[in-house]
């Protein structure tokens, strides 16, 4: 079992947890992910590692509740435990393999959307600790859904906060904020975008136009996470790649986002149905449109 030593509600339906998993914490690097399984009947859920403490053997995860497994995860308290917690999986972020002096010469931008802010944080923190400057655009639908703003402010050189509804910071998407900065004459050599697929897609459309190489972190449906099932396959530059072993990070300008988004919807009906059933309990009467 993998005990939870810290639990924090970051925003509506978004939770942060520090989980004791020494085998994962020992060698993990920014960009990698874990798979968690809350209990016997739970799904295996991939989550990007948001922070780690090797000495204490801790891994920080951030998740949003979307179905019955994640709802039960949210119900766990400090002292409770995950039944299964495996990792680190996937390849570490390319940035950590690059020469630090070379990185220092680059102007790096991170664009984070929603819960995607969580996996962006350790990368920005890592760069900051290695003396590399970078800017961050982080956005959410509204003020209440913004997470890790204070933490990010400490490690980012310039932090730009956006909300879709304008309830806080710049009104509009991260893509719009990048366009605005560009129009003001701000230039970047490298971009990392992590968030909902639709957001990553539009960031990539813009950065391709602007000529900024862009890395994205893909989060497709997965089962085993070790390359065995092929559920997470994506088209990258016309080739089939498995996000779990070849990724999760890819060249955003080569990813076929439309197809990835379509595949993401594959199980949406069941997920939604399970969530609705849980919320409505005995009063569930088929409003999900799928029950008889």
């Amino acid at each position, binding site marked *: 079992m993998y005990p939870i030593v810290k639990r924090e509600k970051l925003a509506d339906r978004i939770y942060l947890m520090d989980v004791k998993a020494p085998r994962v914490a020992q060698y993990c690097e920014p960009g990698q992910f874990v798979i968690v399984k809350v209990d016997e009947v739970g799904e295996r859920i991939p989550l990007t590692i948001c922070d780690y403490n090797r000495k204490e053997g801790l891994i920080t995860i951030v998740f949003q509740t979307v179905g019955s497994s994640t709802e039960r995860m949210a119900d766990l308290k400090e002292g409770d435990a995950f039944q299964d917690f495996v990792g680190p999986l996937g390849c570490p972020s390319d940035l950590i393999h690059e020469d630090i002096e070379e990185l220092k010469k680059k102007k790096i931008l991170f664009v984070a959307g929603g819960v995607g802010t969580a996996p962006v944080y350790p990368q920005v923190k890592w760069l900051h600790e290695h003396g590399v400057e970078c800017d961050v655009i982080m956005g959410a639908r509204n003020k209440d859904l913004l997470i890790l703003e204070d933490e990010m402010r400490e490690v980012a050189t310039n932090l730009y906060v956006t909300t879709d509804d304008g309830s806080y910071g710049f009104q509009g998407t991260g893509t719009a904020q990048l366009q605005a900065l560009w129009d003001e004459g701000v230039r970047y050599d490298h971009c990392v975008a992590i968030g909902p697929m639709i957001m990553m897609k539009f960031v990539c459309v813009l950065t391709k136009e602007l000529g900024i190489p862009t890395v994205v972190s893909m989060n497709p449906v997965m089962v*085993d996470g070790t390359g065995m099932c092929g559920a997470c396959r994506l088209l990258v530059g016309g080739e089939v790649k*498995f996000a779990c072993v070849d990724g999760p990070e890819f060249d955003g300008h080569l990813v076929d986002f439309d*197809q990835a988004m379509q595949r993401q919807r594959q199980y949406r009906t069941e997920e939604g149905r399970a969530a609705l059933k849980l919320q409505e309990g005995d009063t569930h009467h088929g409003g999900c449109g799928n029950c008889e």
Partner: protein
Amino acid sequence: MDVLNKVPVREQEPAVRAANFEEVCLGYNEEEAMAEAARCLNCKNAQCMKGCPVSIDIPGFITQVKEGNFKEAYRIISRSSALPAVCGRVCPQETQCEGKCIRGIKGDPVSIGKLERFVADWAREHGIRPECAGEKNGRKVAVIGSGPAGLTCAGDLAKMGYDVTIFEALHEAGGVLVYGIPEFRLPKQEVVAAEVENVRALGVKIETNVVIGKSVTIDELMEDEGFEAVFIGSGAGLPRFMGIPGEQAMGVFSANEYLTRNNLMKAFLEDYDTPVKAGNKVIVVGGGNVAMDAARTARRLGAEVHIVYRRGEEELPARREEIHHAKEEGIIFDLLQNPTELLVDENGCVKGAKIIRMELGEPDESGRRSPVEIPGSEYVMEADTVIMSLGTSPNPLISSTTKGLETNRRKCIVASEENGATSKPGVFAGGDAVTGAATVILAMGAGKAAAAGIDEYLRNK
């Protein structure tokens, strides 16, 4: 009773079992087992043993069954096999022990597999466990993967006194026995978990949720954690696809994914969160045992199922028993046919396959007649689910993170057939990671050979 014919084994009726996940074969009872055992000629030069990759003393245990000494029969089997309840169910006996049985020259061979299964089930039901090891020698050996190869290797090493830890990447021990082979062929709780428990009872530690090559590497296990030798039994790996248009559509799965959702994640049970698309009409592409498992699973989830295979009936690589069971359950075999394209609807869901008819051409170098497309014979088969069961290619997780571990052209780990030794001192390997996808019992044979190899290596170290 006619000695030429085997005692028939009771099975669930096809129409009933096609709608449930309970075990198809019900096995022998005591009387049936003793009657079948009486057919054994107890040959002095037992051919059956030569056909067994783990060399079970077959006439020895059958003699005990004939006399009703089931406990002694179990003791004899478990000297050679850590997983008799599994092997009795999934071994291709017809090409191994039973294929060599003298009785089989005229009449049915002795049902060695069903007898093995009976003995293992009887022992489990009577709480009998394999005998524990004697003295522990305190030397640490790591085993990667808890499938048939790993469990066998670990069990044998523990019996020799080694301090063995198995590292398993998934959340449950058993490897392909848990994620791959369906419940209706191999009950998970009753049979697999019980045999894994028997291996644990020998003193083997099992650490789940550890991905070797990611969580920790082989070099780190040997340098930092004090393991003197390592056995790699990590299994087959990445599923293959056909590379035809439409394969990325929704509703197209690898057999690995479809089976893992059902078997490991228990998607067929209401209480479990992991979903699976049952499908109304399912095409399974391929003709091996995994294809049969996927097809019969889809059938039980309520679908009309077609197996599309590019060669003919004779060439189907699956066991005859599996093909027979599949047909009985109403699975339709569309042979000498091959998909050339998957058709996709406006929502990105698969809606069918363009299929071309094939004929068998001249035999190639391997002696197999290769299928050739018949021009102009294409037609469309509608389907809402397509399952690709085309085999696997090796997973690079371990080979790419272990210094000095040689792989071959097909990216399989190179290991000696005799003792499992790889190019890296102290590292041994066996099973699908070495051979590519094969059978449970061949993996067990390799695990057994490697255990002996590791013992010899450590004694001389």
